[in-house]
């Protein structure tokens, strides 16, 4: 057995590398916008047509860069909500929340690594569900509205 595997038998404790200015400002909005951006970049990459190889290479590089960057924003925003905002009582009240984070982060990673519209759309579905739970936990009513983006998907707001 490898040493790394043996070390897994050690008890796991939590240590804080805090930003820890408890600003209390959390919002799933940025993750939603980033999820739409990842879908859009994936759509553009899928539909890309050009007779100019140099321009094609340039466009692919730019779109991939933006897709990469926004998938990173989704991951960072979701990790902040998962680790900093949501507390034990939320995970008890919304039993699927932890699994929802895991599956959404997995699809984000897949959307990042490939040109996969389905993975990008699954990411948005997960982000929207997390946004709904977030707003419920804040005591406001989440509402779904059609986004004004070319992706055509929804956004979760609140009233």
């Amino acid at each position, binding site marked *: 057995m490898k040493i790394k595997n043996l070390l897994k038998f050690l008890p*796991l404790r939590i240590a804080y*590398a805090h930003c*820890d200015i408890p600003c209390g400002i959390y919002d799933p909005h940025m993750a939603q916008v980033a999820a739409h951006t990842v879908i859009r970049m994936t759509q553009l990459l899928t539909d890309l047509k050009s007779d100019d190889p140099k321009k094609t290479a340039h466009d692919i590089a730019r779109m991939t860069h933006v897709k990469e960057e926004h998938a990173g924003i989704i991951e960072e925003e979701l990790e902040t909500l998962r680790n900093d905002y949501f507390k034990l009582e939320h995970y008890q009240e919304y039993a699927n929340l932890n699994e929802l984070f895991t599956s959404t982060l997995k699809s984000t990673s897949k959307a990042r690594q490939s040109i996969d519209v389905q993975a990008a759309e699954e990411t948005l579905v997960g982000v929207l569900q997390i946004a709904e739970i977030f707003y419920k936990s804040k005591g406001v009513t989440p509402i779904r509205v059609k986004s004004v983006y070319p992706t055509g998907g929804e956004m979760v707001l609140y009233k």
Partner: protein
Amino acid sequence: MLLLARLKIIGHSMEPQIKNGETILVSKIPYWFKTPQINDIVAFKDSSEKILVKRIVKIENRRYFVEGDNKRDSLDSRKFGDISKDKIIGEIIFKL
């Protein structure tokens, strides 16, 4: 504190070296042979006995000034002051 412990990191103050959600191995064994040094990344207990992870950036009169690597986003000695050696529970020896 055990001789070796696994710690799961929550927070961003040690990025990019240690990222939020990563697991690290901490040990007090190195400090049997040396005193904590500048640039060591250490785990220590704060006044509420919570374990924090920061880097030693200054040592004065056997007091240790610790800071996060991500200085724009870190609660550390700049706010809570320096710490004594007895609060340090070990050095981070590697990431798992």
